[in-house]
């Protein structure tokens, strides 16, 4: 069996008492390239936050294989673009895992930064101030930082937002390069064509897992129809989820059906949403 990079065991993540990711089980294999797909509010970003540890699980666990470093590109960056820094300063932050607080940046490190900038097509941008970059240029700068981080697990949350077609192509090429280097990559994406063409595996989320596996199957008509019935809003009077309502001891096949059943029940209770 393939080595696990990430293992979710009955993972529930959320805000207040409302789950955004509900009882997720499964394994992300080492070296796999997975798209995370789902409607707004289906728990994609929440799952990413849970993996990096920015959000503590309400129940269950997410386990990372030993020694795996994470590079995480959040959907909503807290980057302060007015801070007086240059492109090269931002990309050099990616050296942190290797050099930490006090380690000197060597000539080799500077070469790695320059190489990363070249890989995203930003040669000549080294000394540009951050507030002079366009949205797509900034996104490529952040990809360069991910490159420099040299991590085993790469998490990208909607990296293609507001990025032009050519840049999407460049970024996809980088993602494929990481996949070729046997890094584990998870990418939150909305463009299903892009996912079908470029991602071998897909996790389809609708708060719970709707499907997870080979992209063609996961994004098949039946699963897509089921995901579309997902109701985004929280319900203040939703029943409490407890041991009686959910059976913890089950195998994967069972879990899959069980969750699908839950999603159906939820949808029929609220009436089907217009697609």
């Amino acid at each position: 069996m393939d080595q696990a990079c990430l293992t979710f065991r009955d993972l529930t993540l959320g805000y207040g008492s409302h789950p955004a990711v509900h009882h997720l089980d499964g394994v992300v294999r080492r070296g796999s390239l997975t798209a995370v797909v789902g409607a707004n509010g289906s728990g994609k970003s929440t799952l990413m936050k849970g993996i990096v540890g920015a959000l503590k699980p309400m129940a269950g666990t997410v386990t990372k294989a030993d020694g795996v470093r994470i590079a995480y590109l959040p959907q909503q960056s807290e980057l302060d673009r007015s801070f007086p820094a240059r492109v090269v300063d931002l990309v050099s932050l990616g050296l942190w895992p290797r050099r930490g607080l006090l380690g000197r940046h060597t000539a080799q490190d500077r070469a790695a930064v320059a190489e990363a900038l070249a890989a995203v097509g930003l040669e000549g941008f080294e000394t540009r101030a951050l507030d002079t970059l366009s949205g797509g240029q900034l996104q490529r700068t952040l990809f360069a930082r991910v490159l420099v981080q040299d991590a085993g697990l790469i998490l990208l949350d909607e990296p293609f937002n507001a990025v032009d077609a050519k840049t999407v192509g460049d970024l996809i090429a980088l993602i494929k390069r990481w996949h070729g280097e046997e890094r584990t990559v998870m990418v939150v994406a909305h463009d299903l064509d892009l996912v079908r063409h470029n991602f071998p595996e897909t996790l389809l989320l609708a708060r719970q897992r709707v499907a997870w596996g080979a992209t063609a199957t996961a994004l098949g008509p039946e699963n897509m129809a089921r995901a579309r019935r997902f109701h985004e809003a929280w319900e203040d009077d939703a029943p409490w989820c407890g041991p009686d309502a959910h059976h913890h001891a089950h195998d994967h096949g069972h879990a899959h059906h069980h969750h699908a059943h839950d999603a159906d029940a939820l949808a029929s209770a609220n009436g089907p949403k217009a697609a």
Partner: protein
Amino acid sequence: MQTLYALLVAPFVEYAFMQKALFGSLLLSAGACPVGVFLMLRRMSLSGDAMAHAILPGAAAGFLFYGLEILPMTVGGLIAGIVVALGAGAVSRFTVQREDASMAAFYLISLALGVLLVSVRGSSVDLMHVLFGTVLALNNEALGLIGAIAAVTLASLFVFWRALVAECLDPLFLRSVSRLGSPVHFIFLGLVVINLVGGFQALGTLLSVGLMILPAAAARFWTARVETMCVAAVAIGFASCVAGLLLSYHAALPSGPAIILSAGAVYLVSVLAGTRGALRARLVTHRHRTA
């Protein structure tokens, strides 16, 4: 030449109190100005002012029990400042409230407590000392304290530089690669507090924040790099101290406000004439390149 000497150099050569005042205020600038740069870049300039007020009850408590003595007032101010910084920082880190609101809440409580304590015993002359400082009466004990604060500040900035920059530039990233995010924030707030406490001997609680913020705000108009901004802020701080003390000496003005007003003048000039200032943006020709 003679008059220039008499004007600029003689006061510092001839009077020991002027030498001490100069030495103390330069030491103060060396630590406080770079701290001010980071305070400004974190959009916390007004928090510096709030922190300066927050120190008051501690200093007042020291004054209440020991009279106008430097050490107890300093320790008291330090404790009050750290309580407020930790309280406000913790509320903003662990609840939905942002730091501006939590800082405002804590400093207002602190300020009211301070005014209460001073009025319990002090005469208005004492209150003036606490509020406006006495740079011309710095003794060796105070100089030692200011020197220690400057040394601790510069050493901390040197060690935590990379984390401080990362925490300002991209805090979420720092949290994803390191556990230093929260500690470095509190270390920074601690540096703000000790520098304000160091400053209140010389400049008073109300004005000490001026030497922190004004040179930093002025330096922003001259450079686009953090490193050079810190150096420029220190240079502006030094110049303001020398100019302020001379002004105070020759015109018989109170020294604290004279130093801060000198920094204020540099700020106003920088706003207009700085390489990144208002005039340059207006006056530069509207020619543009093809790419």
